[in-house]
């Protein structure tokens, strides 16, 4: 549990930069949710038996969680590791690279969870969710956060410069967002694209959260959760591997 001190360090910085952090991580996704949700919603009939804004809220919950987790573990993580050399300072203490990687991943997932849970709150307050089952989206958001934090941290420890993250964002995150059933049901995609979506974590997050917003138990819940957990675990292991390599030279 030594990684907790790393988590607490990041938490203290977050508390000090609270206003800016809240604006970018909470206000941004909400503006997007209401803008697109009501704007497009006015033109669209119900989707899969839900109002468009409720349908989109489930997708946006996962997308915003993904973005917060990825930005934190990539950009903020890289700033701590590379720019400020915070990781070097921590390594002089009785902590190892494994502790730092664990602390960073859980931290980014925690921050992402806050984004996700704000949207859960909005679905309740605005009556987009029809049953208390939506509260189960809270642990689901944490799981989505863990998966993307872990993958983002791999990018972080592999990066030689800031530009590196553009590749991952443009080539992976943006297309993933388009095919994972965030804006429209993924099932209407051509079969090969749907297969790609199913191999990626975001789709599985949406598959858990959307039924919860609609008020029913998610079908194949354990499969979806297992995929997210697998991404988190594999990301953790790979991030440690590459971080050790980076710090041993």
């Amino acid at each position, binding site marked *: 549990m030594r990684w907790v*001190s790393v988590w607490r360090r990041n938490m203290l910085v977050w508390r000090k930069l609270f206003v800016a952090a809240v604006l970018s991580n909470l206000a941004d996704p909400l503006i997007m949710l209401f803008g697109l949700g009501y704007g497009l919603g006015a033109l669209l009939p119900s989707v899969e038996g839900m109002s468009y804004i409720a349908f989109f809220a489930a997708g946006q919950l996962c997308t915003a969680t993904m973005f917060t987790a990825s930005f934190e573990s990539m950009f903020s993580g890289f700033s701590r590791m590379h720019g400020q050399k915070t990781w070097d300072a921590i390594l002089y203490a009785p902590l190892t690279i494994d502790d730092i990687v664990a602390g960073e991943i859980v931290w980014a997932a925690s921050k992402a969870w806050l984004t996700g849970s704000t949207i859960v709150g909005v679905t309740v307050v605005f009556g987009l969710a029809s049953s208390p089952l939506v509260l189960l989206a809270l642990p689901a958001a944490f799981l989505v956060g863990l998966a993307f934090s872990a993958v983002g941290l791999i990018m972080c420890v592999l990066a030689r410069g800031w530009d590196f993250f553009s590749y991952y964002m443009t080539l992976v995150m943006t297309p993933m967002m388009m095919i994972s059933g965030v804006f429209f049901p993924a099932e209407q995609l051509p079969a090969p694209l749907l297969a790609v979506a199913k191999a990626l974590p975001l789709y599985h997050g949406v598959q858990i959260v959307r039924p919860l917003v609609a008020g029913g138990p998610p079908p194949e819940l354990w499969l979806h959760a297992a995929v997210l957990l697998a991404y988190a675990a594999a990301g953790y292991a790979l991030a440690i591997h590459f971080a050790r390599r980076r710090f041993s030279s």
Partner: protein
Amino acid sequence: MAITALSARGLRKSYGALEVVSGVDLAVAPGECFGLLGPNGAGKTTTLKLCLGLIEPDGGEIELLDEPVPRRAREARARVGVVPQFDNLDPDFTVEENLVVYGRYFRIPENRIKERIPGLLEFAGLAGRGDSKLTTLSGGMKRRLTLARALVNDPQLVFMDEPTTGLDPQARHLIWERLRRLTQEGKTLVLTTHFMEEAERLCHRLAIMDRGRIIAEGSPRALIAEHIEPQVVEVHGQGHEEWMQRGKALAPRVERVGDTVYCYGENIEPLVKSLSAFPDLSYLHRRASLEDVFLKLTGRDLRD
């Protein structure tokens, strides 16, 4: 107590085809201030990292405070402090928060850290500055805070990588005074530097390192006595070539660098006298220093 606070035998480390550390042996006694000297790229920082267990050696054995490294480096580091070459304090935190957060990495209870903070700030010459933002501190203050941070766990041994590089004389002298205090308190210090003056003032014992090897070892005085003539005359200016014809014979050893001539010897008075016939030449007659030893052993070529 152990005979050595830090010992390394046959230490080796390569990066690709380049062997950065090629068979280093070190033994630092408890309470000693030990200096590792060497030009840039000599392998000093890599040696420190190996001793801390931050990188794996390709060969050799290390024992730090009775713990085998890297196998039990974590346990060893719990009783060690580190002042790195470049400050890596947390820029978002105040002075005090930097110390509190760092103490947590050692799992020191929060109230114990808080108790220690006034003493640490006083030691660092930062008393009353606990709430200051890091951005308001000067370079020297940051360096002292880094030193205070390295002491947060009350370490038995402190590693310092070029502790005064980039500081003005005032700041440097304050750091030196504090480091002496630490040795008086019985802490073991291991520092790297390429300031000979620093090494001469602070270190009980030194090792000069070049190209991954230790090429000389001993107390500053012993190194000077062993490796260099006691007197030096530096001559430069117009007409030094003409004077050289005569001067050469008067000094046992002469070195020319650009238009400066360095003359080394034991009885060098006749040489100094011979200079009075050349009023255009300026000269400096001084005792040999550690820097002369260093340059003799590692050469005058640039090492960038």
